[in-house]
């Protein structure tokens, strides 16, 4: 990836065609482990390097993307590519983000169906699975630490979490309804 332009510290500008967007995203997504929050900065970096978008603008799109459901890598790439290359760019972004992991998983899945029954491999998966609650705990910790806490937010989070825990089969409706209620509550009753 060392181009003369990069060596001189000048952003190399190529026009963001759908095909180039697809290739850029596919390369990043297939090489970045660790989920959406690891992928997003890499995308910002690559788009900026090719002169497609400025960093501040990229992160403005990123914060808007968090308003939508769906994998953050997908929503950010979609909105960003729409901005720089229109609807065709956005479609290219979807395929760029979705296809590489799909094929990687089919390969991994094939591997598991071949070796999944061996005792050693079962032990590997068992150990790997055991750390998952710890990982979720640390995401919660990091999210909580990065938020400005108030009594209102504690009440919101605890109420929703208790409702979700007590009525797990209605999680879908609790979340949709809950988010609407919180939004309207904030509109009506500003703390």
């Amino acid at each position, binding site marked *: 990836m060392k181009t003369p332009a990069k060596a001189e510290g000048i952003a190399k500008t190529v026009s963001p065609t759908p095909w180039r967007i697809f290739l850029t995203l596919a390369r990043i997504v297939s090489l970045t482990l660790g989920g959406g929050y690891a992928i997003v900065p890499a995308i910002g970096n690559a788009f900026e390097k090719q002169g497609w978008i400025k960093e501040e603008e990229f992160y403005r799109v990123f914060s808007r993307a968090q308003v939508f459901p769906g994998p953050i890598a997908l929503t950010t790439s979609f909105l960003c590519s729409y901005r720089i290359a229109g609807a065709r760019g956005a479609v290219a972004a979807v395929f760029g983000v979705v296809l590489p992991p799909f094929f990687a998983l089919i390969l991994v899945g094939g591997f598991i169906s071949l070796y999944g029954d061996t005792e050693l491999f079962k032990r590997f998966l068992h150990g790997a699975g*055991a750390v998952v609650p710890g990982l979720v705990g640390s995401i919660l910790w990091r999210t909580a630490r990065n938020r400005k806490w108030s009594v209102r937010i504690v009440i919101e989070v605890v109420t929703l979490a208790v409702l979700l825990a007590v009525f797990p089969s209605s999680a879908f409706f609790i979340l949709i309804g809950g988010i609407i209620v919180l939004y309207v509550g904030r509109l009506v009753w500003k703390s």
Partner: protein
Amino acid sequence: MEILNVSLTFLKVGVVAFGGGWSVVGLIKQEIVPHWMSADAFNSLIAIAQSTPGPIALNAATLVGWQKAGILGALAATFSVIAFPLLAMSLALAFSKYIPLKKDLADESLRSGSMAMILMTLWTLLPHTSLPMPWIFAFAAFGITAFTKINAVWVILGAGALNMLLGVLH
């Protein structure tokens, strides 16, 4: 029929897939454990989803679809889980001028919703056993990923290798 079932389930998951992969994992678990697979099988599947490149919610959907209904199931699950987000974004882009949403208020409400979902995820993923091993692994993983910059992938792969080694020594 299975494929339709998979599609509907992940369509539903896609509608509330706020707040990053882990909160979505809890939702997926709610939908499919125990009638589609056991809690243990689900945890292993999540470990695979996390150690493969790509967004974890997308990977989890692909793997569940694959286990449930083969390659077509994987395709159906993958495209179902992103269908609503894509629709929502397209509509928002088309009508953004006409939506009088206060963005900062909406952001804060979504963040509360997403934290509650992560809490629920944690709750449903906690080990249902008094054996020490799963708890030790989980607490060690929490300590490493919450307080160091070590990538979660290494924690997952390391824990798998360690458990394999313990099995060999036994």
